[in-house]
């Protein structure tokens, strides 16, 4: 693949801490290779800032291979940038051309307060899982793994739902800051498996209640979440969750 170099203007959100108002700062970077990843371009910028005695930009990142879910930049108005089914760390500079201006902001949601610059607090997702995103089995309780055959289609669907990386792009991209895609992916995974059946009702009710408590908005079926999800989690999960929720609401006594 042909590669090239480019000079870019970056407008990046700077915010000292959660109490600070924050604003966009403008930076210039030169001689960026099209083979770099987007975060490597940020590394170059930060090295430049540190060397010049300026404050580097704080951003979340860890695995840099698209699976840990830590990276979280809103790039030119899109969660994780211009490529479909992609995380920020997997975005490469060949997506841009010489002279481009790139605007980078943190995830925007009341439930994800900014910690610093591009870093946000996503612990609301952990608390939603704590509300029921598990199967209650203690270590040592299990029967043989092949004792319960599972229909391959159900197993595959459960896997697809389980491939959510918890990055929060769905929330960041939704005009209502809804977390329905995230929550429904976990609800679906466990509802599709026989092992998850006993807690089906309480799980969906409790997780949805926690989701509301955290301040996430409602779903109005724009499907923006599915379009921006780096793992292609389907909105069919939301429909499944709504069915599960309805069933649970009708059958649960308290």
């Amino acid at each position, binding site marked *: 693949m042909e590669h090239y170099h480019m000079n870019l203007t970056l407008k990046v959100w700077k915010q000292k801490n959660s109490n600070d108002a924050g604003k966009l700062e403008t930076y210039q970077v030169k001689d960026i290779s099209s083979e770099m990843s987007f975060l490597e371009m940020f590394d170059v910028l930060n090295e430049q800032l540190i060397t010049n005695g300026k404050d580097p930009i704080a951003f979340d990142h860890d695995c840099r291979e698209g699976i840990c879910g830590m990276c979280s930049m809103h790039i030119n108005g899109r969660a994780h940038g211009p490529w479909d089914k992609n995380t920020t760390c997997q975005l490469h500079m060949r997506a841009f051309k010489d002279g481009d201006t790139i605007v980078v902001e943190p995830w925007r949601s009341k439930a994800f307060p900014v910690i610093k610059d591009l870093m946000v607090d996503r612990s609301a997702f952990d608390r939603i899982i704590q509300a029921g995103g598990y199967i209650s089995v203690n270590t040592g309780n299990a029967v043989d793994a092949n004792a319960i055959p599972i229909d*391959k289609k159900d197993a595959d669907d459960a896997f697809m739902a389980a491939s959510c990386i918890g990055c929060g792009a769905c929330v960041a991209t939704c005009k209502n800051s809804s977390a329905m895609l995230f929550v429904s992916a976990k609800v679906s995974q466990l509802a599709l498996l026989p092992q998850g059946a006993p807690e089906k009702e309480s799980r969906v009710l409790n997780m949805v209640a926690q989701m509301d408590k955290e301040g996430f908005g409602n779903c109005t079926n724009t499907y923006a979440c599915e379009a921006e999800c780096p793992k292609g989690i389907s909105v069919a999960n939301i429909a499944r969750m709504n069915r599960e929720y309805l069933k649970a609401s009708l059958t649960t006594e308290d």
Partner: protein
Amino acid sequence: MDLNAKIPAGEMNEKWTDYKGHVKLVNPANKRKLEVIVIGTGLAGASAAASLGELGYNVKAFCFQDSPRRAHSIAAQGGINAAKNYQNDGDSVFRLFYDTVKGGDYRAREANVHRLSEVSAAIIDHCVAQGVPFAREYGGLLSNRSFGGTQVQRTFYAAGQTGQQLLLGAYSALERQIALGNVTQYNRHEMLDVVMVDGKARGIIARDLVTGKLERHFGHAVLLCTGGYGNVFYLSTNAMGSNVTAAWKAHKKGAFFGNPCFTQIHPTCIPVSGDHQSKLTLMSESLRNDGRIWVPKQKGETRKAVDIPEEERDYYLERRYPAFGNLVPRDVASRAAKERCDEGYGVGTTKMAVYLDFADAIKRYGKIEVGKQGLSNVEEASIIAMGKKVVEEKYGNLFEMYEKITGENPYEMPMRIYPAVHYTMGGLWVDYELQTTVQGLYALGEANFSDHGANRLGASALMQGLADGYFVIPYTLGNYLADEIRNPSLPTSHAAFEETENAVRDRINKLMRIKGSQTVESFHKRLGKIMWDKCGMARNEKGLREAIVEIQQLKKEFWSDVKIPGDIDEMNPELDKAGRVADFIELGELMCKDALDRNESCGGHFREESQTEEGEAKRDDENYSYVAAWEYKGESDWNLNKEALTFEIVKPTQRSYK
């Protein structure tokens, strides 16, 4: 110091059962009074914290990421081994044990490996019960595949995301315990020292990475589940934040470091593309089930891969190792790739890459599909299209990842791959109970040295992390804590906490006061280059001696000229990184010292002075059949302790995969 591995007496296959039958227990009422600190929430840490919480201990779990679910176990792709023998192909606890000891080139402790094999099946049962969506066959039962270094199909998997699914399983169990109040979770926290009272680990000093504040935490025991230290090489497949700091602090407080030089260089990674590179990406070893590795027979070949005819290709693994072919263990495959590239047969712009080709697999699967569907007179193009679909089902996400990074389509042209640092078999020395040489301080998963010897087989890391956390530590920790029930929790105003916190604060102040001119990152890169060039895939005495001197110089330069922006009492990722790089520099020196001392080749450790006529690694069992357990004495000063390895069952032979 006398190293006692505390291996139970008796027959190999009865040791663990016997141990469990006689180990001390802690009654439920007492468990509630005992506090356990778990550092790291990957497979080992999350499974340990969850299981200990279930038992009723008071657990505090720490991770430096924003959530326990981010730990780098999540990136493991290929699979997890278990001696289930669901495929009826001759697998057994003994075979898995044997393969692992042999694969580790006879530098692992037999009793630990046997226990690992014994508990492997229960891991799969437990994960399925948790809702881990493993791959299944049409009949609804679990699917298996084969992995390097074995001749049976014992690997369970979830597409190319096995680590993710297993970690999310352990994470959900951990979150459940948090909800139940048995575990308190501390995110964005980093352990910066162990607190010692009367010779026992009694707590930690941690830094809240958001506020920069130092915190004191008491524990009757401290479990380090902090993963490996591959980032000492700067470029590796590890996550950016993976570090040795917690393990290194423990080492300086008396925990011996076992076999630090044993590093796994994984054969199938995406090659380096330039100086800007911040990390390397692995392409799962499972690809070697179907992909064929080759280089051109002609040096300096300029044609495109697809234009090179079959007879002008050198499938060097199939040629050199006909019995295992492309499925030889990782160390063997990596060295063979390096050998071809060093000889001038490498491909791509840097010439430091070999091809991993799926063209044959695509054709083969296409023909099988034709057969299945009962078609006749099918055009070549349709066969290939059908084959591509099958390959996509098996490896789709990996192919997609490759294309995102390189911009090349691996369905049309072979992947280019090259070895990269992936895993560290070395780690804190632990006994059979996973206790380090410091009482009350334990190491689990990749952070310890115990089960993989000098080379880890594919799909064994996930197995070991979960074995340690779910099925080993819940028993062995009780044996220690049973004697601690008389010792109530100490207040963190205790002098030992005060003193340790002050030492941690002094070091941070010292780092911040340097105000030099070179960035943390630049030092890390330089360290990485020394390590890769002189303590990488091939090592020799001259290079290692040079490396030690260079690292000592680098250390001086770091402590006099590093530039760290920002303040102490705030979020400051550069300061976090500076502390980690300072520890990596010290570790790098020890790794070179260990590699120098071990004048033999074994597994991933290849000393150029010790090879067979055919260029294979040559072990020296007479002189080096031991675990090197290094004891920290002071700056650049270590004492070597040896744990002799005795092999009752698997008799060491020259490892052959031919």
